[in-house]
């Protein structure tokens, strides 16, 4: 026997009340000087024992009232009597395996159809008042209709709409959810039914301890549910899958640029595929086919390259033409393709002479082909303006803005820039000799509330004195913008010599419970931050400690300058928000641009 509401058992303490009342009355007696004692005494002699017995019974009855009340309010549940009681109200949790493998056996007689039929039968066999929860085990464990329901007809319809083909079943997670759902069930008679094909993928031996732990937890609950395992379909030994998500490169794609699609083909079964055809499809059309050899229980990598000829959103798919279990034979991804990537360069020190202007090196780095008058396409298009021309209109089109040695901005400009970043724009900030340091620190950084990731502390190094120069620490970069420099063939960041730089006041130590907003991407060998990044709204700001021209360092004349600038720009622009390729079970977000921004566009 168990109690659904154990806390109320505390009410049994009320058993003391009749006893206290009895003692209270006893202690509050009156005294009578009595004459007719011979009449009373014979009564007492005769009745004492009977009275004591009566009083004892009365006390027991009175005491049992609060006890019985407390017991009843604690909702006692007697389990184990179900066979004697016949059909009665039950609470059932159905764990429905909707993984890929459940679709094996063809659309008409797949394991999942059998499972759905079984669920339908379970639902139909419930008596009025029973509640049922159906948990999907694959593709992110979730409950149909969000919680257990007594509306079995609605649940039946919902089950009918449910499809299979969502990766592999997360058995421990499903059991854990069942444990959580138990608390919401209404009836004491509980059953958990697992409908699955018990594929090795989902019910692997590695997960055995986790499953055991969850089962133990279920068993330790206040009411131990009965567990029924119901095998549907046949275990398919023959299965090939393509892993999702697809590995796409690079960060951002322009029209005509080649995308490389890496896909991992996995053989779960025991059959060998010496010549497995793997098809690459773009927007549903076969583009290329490759053959790969796939041994039993092994994986193989395939690589496809493709150049899109139109901009916009494209769907790429890698499909392995293998077993009848179609659901996991392919993996798809959405790829946004840009026709061009507009970048706004804001120069604080313009100079008509070539390479003497503040943004000239950056422009060359961002548009190498355009500057060389070559035939090749530049994805990035640049537009250079002076600081005073910066306004909301100028910011309407570009996806990345670059501030180079801009002395300071007016309040209107700053406001426009802030709105631009918050709505998903990227911003690169380079200091220089012309900047107004106090404005940068007080307004642009604004004590951490502004756009600038870190405030400027002081100038370090010197232009002429040797030995005071610094270089960038070549380390293993985690950041996607710098990742490519982990490969020495793409250039070595430590080659560059930095003569003069702004020391950034690194105040990034977060308080307790605060999210670290500012990330240091790279450092100088003096320990000072070289590149820092801050997330502002939906956009990002990257701040450097040196200018983007060759005034303070020889960075712009190093080979890695071009890829560095391109990487940073594409990184800032590649923020596709909300993400297009989401995993199963993750929410899919869509954002509506605010009316002002929409009209500005």
């Amino acid at each position: 026997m168990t109690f659904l509401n154990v806390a109320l058992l505390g009410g049994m303490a009320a058993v003391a009340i009749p006893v206290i009342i009895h003692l209270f009355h006893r202690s509050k007696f009156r005294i009578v000087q009595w004459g007719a004692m011979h009449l009373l005494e014979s009564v007492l002699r005769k009745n004492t024992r009977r009275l004591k017995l009566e009083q004892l019974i009365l006390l027991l009855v009175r005491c049992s009232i609060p006890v019985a009340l407390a017991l009843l309010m604690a909702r006692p549940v007697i389990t184990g009597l179900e066979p004697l009681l016949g059909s009665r109200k039950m609470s059932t949790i159905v764990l429905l395996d909707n993984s890929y493998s459940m679709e094996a056996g063809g659309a008409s007689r797949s394991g999942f159809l059998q499972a759905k039929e079984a669920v339908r039968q379970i639902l139909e066999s419930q008596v009025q008042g029973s509640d049922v929860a159906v948990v999907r085990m694959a593709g992110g464990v979730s409950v149909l209709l969000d919680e257990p329901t007594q509306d079995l007809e609605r649940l039946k319809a919902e089950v009918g709409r449910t499809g299979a083909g969502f990766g592999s079943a997360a058995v421990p997670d499903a059991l854990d959810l069942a444990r959580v759902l138990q608390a919401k069930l209404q009836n004491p008679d509980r059953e958990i039914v697992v409908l699955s094909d018990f594929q090795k993928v989902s019910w692997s031996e590695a997960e055995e301890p986790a499953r055991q732990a969850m089962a133990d937890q279920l068993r330790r609950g206040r009411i131990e549910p009965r567990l029924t395992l119901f095998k549907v379909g046949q275990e398919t030994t023959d299965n090939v899958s393509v892993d999702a998500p697809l590995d796409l490169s690079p960060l951002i794609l322009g029209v005509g640029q080649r995308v490389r699609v890496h896909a991992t083909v996995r053989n779960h079964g025991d059959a060998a595929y010496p010549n497995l055809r793997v098809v690459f499809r773009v927007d549903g059309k076969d583009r290329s086919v490759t053959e790969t050899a796939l041994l039993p229980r092994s994986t193989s990598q395939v690589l496809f390259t493709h150049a899109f000829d139109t901009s916009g959103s494209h769907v790429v798919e890698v499909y392995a033409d293998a077993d009848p279990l179609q659901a996991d034979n392919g993996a798809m991804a959405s790829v946004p393709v840009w026709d061009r990537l507009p970048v706004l360069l804001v120069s604080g020190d313009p100079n008509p002479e070539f390479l003497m202007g503040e943004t000239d090196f950056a422009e060359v780095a961002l548009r190498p082909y355009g500057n060389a008058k070559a035939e090749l396409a530049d994805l990035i298009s640049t537009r250079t303006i002076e600081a005073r021309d910066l306004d909301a209109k100028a910011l309407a089109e570009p996806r990345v803005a670059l501030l180079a040695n801009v002395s300071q901005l007016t309040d209107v400009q700053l406001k426009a820039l802030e709105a631009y970043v918050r709505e998903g724009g990227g911003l690169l900030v380079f200091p220089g000799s012309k900047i107004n340091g106090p404005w940068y620190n007080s307004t642009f950084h604004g004590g951490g509330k502004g756009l600038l990731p870190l405030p400027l502390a002081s100038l370090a190094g010197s232009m002429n004195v040797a030995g005071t120069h610094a270089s960038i620490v070549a380390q293993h970069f985690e950041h996607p913008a710098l990742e490519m420099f982990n490969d020495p063939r793409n250039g070595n960041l430590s080659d560059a010599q930095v003569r003069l730089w702004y020391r950034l006041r690194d105040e990034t130590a977060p308080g307790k419970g605060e999210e670290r907003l500012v990330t240091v991407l790279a450092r100088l060998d003096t320990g000072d931050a070289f590149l820092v990044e801050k997330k502002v709204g939906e956009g990002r700001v990257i701040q450097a400690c040196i200018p983007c021209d060759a005034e303070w360092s020889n960075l712009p004349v190093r080979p890695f300058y071009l890829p560095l600038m391109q990487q940073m720009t594409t990184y800032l622009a590649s923020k596709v928000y909300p993400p297009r390729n989401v995993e199963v079970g993750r929410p899919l977000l869509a954002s509506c641009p605010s009316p002002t921004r929409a009209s500005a566009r």
Partner: protein
Amino acid sequence: MAQLAEFLTPGDLRKITSLQVLARTVVEGFCTGLHRSPHKGFSVEFKQHRPYVHGDEIRRLDWRVFGKTDRFYIREYEEETNLRATLLLDASGSMGYGGPDHSKLQYATRLAACLSYLMLQQQDSVGLVTFDTKVRSYIPPRAQTRHLHALVNELEGVKTGGETEIGKVFHDLVPRLYRRGLLVVLSDCFGDVQNLLAALAHLRHARHEIVIFQIWDRDELDFPFRSWTRFDCLEMGDKRHLVDPNHLRESYLANLEIFRADLKQGCHRNRIDLVPMVTDQPYAEALAHYLTLRMRRP
């Protein structure tokens, strides 16, 4: 016609502290309304003749004088008593029930005073015995009016004493009451009924006529206690019982009924008048009963 004294309850008379005044108030108030004056008496000595007037009873005509004189004369008698009444007043502990002002003993003493006064008014002789475990005092019967002082003085000094042993006391009394007469017992008669009846039978055997005014308090008859109560014995201080009276009432009342029935039956068998008196009843009722009894006598 209603009698004035019937409306005088002990509560009304409580303020009269002098027993003598009380007795006179009660008795004269009582006698005022009687149809037949008790002053005429029943066992009387011839006093004088007087001419018959209209309304006199014919049976009281002296026919011998009529034979001699051919006139109607009525024989008048001087009152004279041959009644020797002894009041036996129980002063045991149990008579103390009801508190100092309302106790059964107080009621009994006042009733005794009233009876004494009434009896002395009728030229009967009255004696008084007070007792508890044994005889406390004994005033032999006298018929003089001033004897009332002695009786009243004694009554005023009565205090409750120890345990009732009424049977033993009555046995002891038999030799002292050597002349037969009327014994008026004022007691609650608590104790063993058989013992009491045996003693009464002994007294009856000595050819005493006995009337018992059994004094009750209303509480003893109704047992009105509700909450937890400790009953402390009035006669033996160490006897105490802490009980919930609600559970006992029924049994107590049944027991009381048996006790009263036993006593009544026993008294009836011995031709003893048993008159239960409750302390809130007017004294006059006792007096009326006495007079009824007195009229029965030759």
